[in-house]
């Protein structure tokens, strides 16, 4: 993990190369995080990739309900030779949940991006195959959102099967 000073140096370099991209930096429990503006996240990730953080170890979605902007996408980058991790974080509002896709940079982002789309409804622009992955394709809603009700699944019987959305014989 870069120390607080190292994180600031990286953030400074990112600010110089991509004006307006870096919104905030955070050093918490030994983990370095850079908050980035959603439209420029691809360029920032390319720069970090050139700096050695060339392994995308994880990509996860977060719902910050009731805070705004609600949806968040985290990219956990790893530098294997220096054994160093950095997290890049973007936040997008619910009415414009668009984040550029990084599948062409890391093909391994394919399934994780589909999962975040499935669970949170974040649309990854440029993703080659953005379909639901864990939920059925005709499922309505994004179940990992914090305001998605639990226990609301109807049980299908013969008498009500026609009334269940998406269900057909």
């Amino acid at each position, binding site marked *: 993990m870069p120390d607080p000073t190292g994180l600031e140096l990286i953030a400074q370099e990112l600010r110089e190369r991509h004006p307006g991209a870096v919104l905030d930096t955070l050093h918490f*429990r030994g983990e370095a995080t850079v908050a980035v503006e959603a439209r420029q996240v691809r360029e920032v990730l390319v720069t970090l990739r050139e700096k050695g953080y060339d392994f995308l170890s994880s990509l996860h979605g977060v719902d910050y309900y009731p805070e705004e902007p609600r949806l968040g996408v985290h990219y956990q980058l790893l530098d294997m030779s220096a054994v160093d991790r950095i997290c890049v974080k973007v936040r997008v509002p619910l009415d414009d949940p668009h984040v550029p896709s990084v599948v062409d940079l890391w093909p*391994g982002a394919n399934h994780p991006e589909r999962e975040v789309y499935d669970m949170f409804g974040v649309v990854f622009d440029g993703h080659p195959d953005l379909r639901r992955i864990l939920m059925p394709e005709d499922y309505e809603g994004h179940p990992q959102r914090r305001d998605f009700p639990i226990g609301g699944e109807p049980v299908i019987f013969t008498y009500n099967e026609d009334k269940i959305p998406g269900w057909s014989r």
Partner: protein
Amino acid sequence: MSTGLSDYRRQEQSITYTAEATGEMGLEQELLTINMGPHHPSTHGVLRLILTLEGEVIRDIKPVIGYVHTGIEKTAEQKSYWKVIPVVERMDYLSYYFNAMAFCSAVEKLLEIEVPKRAQYLRVIHMELNRIMSHLVWLGTSCIDLGAIGVWWYCFREREAVLDLFEMSSGQRMHTRYFQVGGVIEDIPAGWAERVRRFTRTMRTRADQYAALLDRNEIFLQRMRHTGVVDQRTLLDLGVTGPLLRATGHPWDLRKAAPYSSYEDFRFKIPVGTEGDNYDRYRVRHAEIYESCDIIDQALEGLPEGPHITPDRKVALPPRHELATSMEALIHHFKLVTEGFRVPPGEVYAPIESPRGELGCFVRSDGSAKPARVHMRDPSFVNLQMTAAAGRDTYLADFVATLAMIDPVLGGVDR
């Protein structure tokens, strides 16, 4: 239903294929798209693969997953932190100690509590036993796919011995709920250490016997050598970690690279392959069984005295005997069992090395007693993306071996 395509057909047609025939298609040739799974003995779970075949040769593979999605991450958000542990254990059902470890280390990171040395060692012992158990299930089931049923019986005999050890230390054979935030639930019972030593002694000779059965078996070698080769760069871009990456010669192992839970105290080697074919994948996992035995022996040898869980009563349950005499202990117990403990707000990511690669747990806390988000970076989920890279332009029969060596656990893939 109205005319036109049914919903089902529409969904099926939204899946795109990139396969193209190589060369001229004869009059009697065509690309054939078939399903492998979801119920197929060699997919090791409910995995559906849509294969595009040109004769016997695979031209494209699309994995379709989600059949055993149970919403564990959503369930975890409804439970207090210590009640999440049994839920996340059920994700990757062959490496439950690792799931619990990833979650507990993330919460411990947020709470900034120190795990006692004895608890760290006990965790290492259980995780390495779990790694052996997971590799035994992988080897046994893989050999069934390759037609060698005998190996399966032998592997499951040893697996049974590991499960007996788990039962002795925690009362459960699987999903033991042994790891707690701050340590482990109970100290090991008397005589357990001796039984574990006896197990590692026999395990080494048994592993020798598996190798004797397989390494000179002409059929096995022909199906494993030079099949399913994927180069290192492709694997890294796909995010693949664990034995699959090490089989290409990349010595990336989080136990060495970024030691957690006192792994820096033990001497062990990281087995690597050379070519990255199925045989290397088998050899790497097989060699890891020996290394795990070594780690267990060292941990038992150097097992420090001391508490098995953090003395912080705000996080860990007080010992049972105190409840009858101490009012304070009773209050702590009541508070923990009803509300659970509160965790300072923040976001952390805790990666560990599971038998299948980097298992990371992301936890976001909003300051309450329930996590606001739990996400597992499950290695099976990410590693499954290499099916197309490993299976394209190979024979369908070879792909059965390749899929067995990728070792996906569908409980972890779908969560």
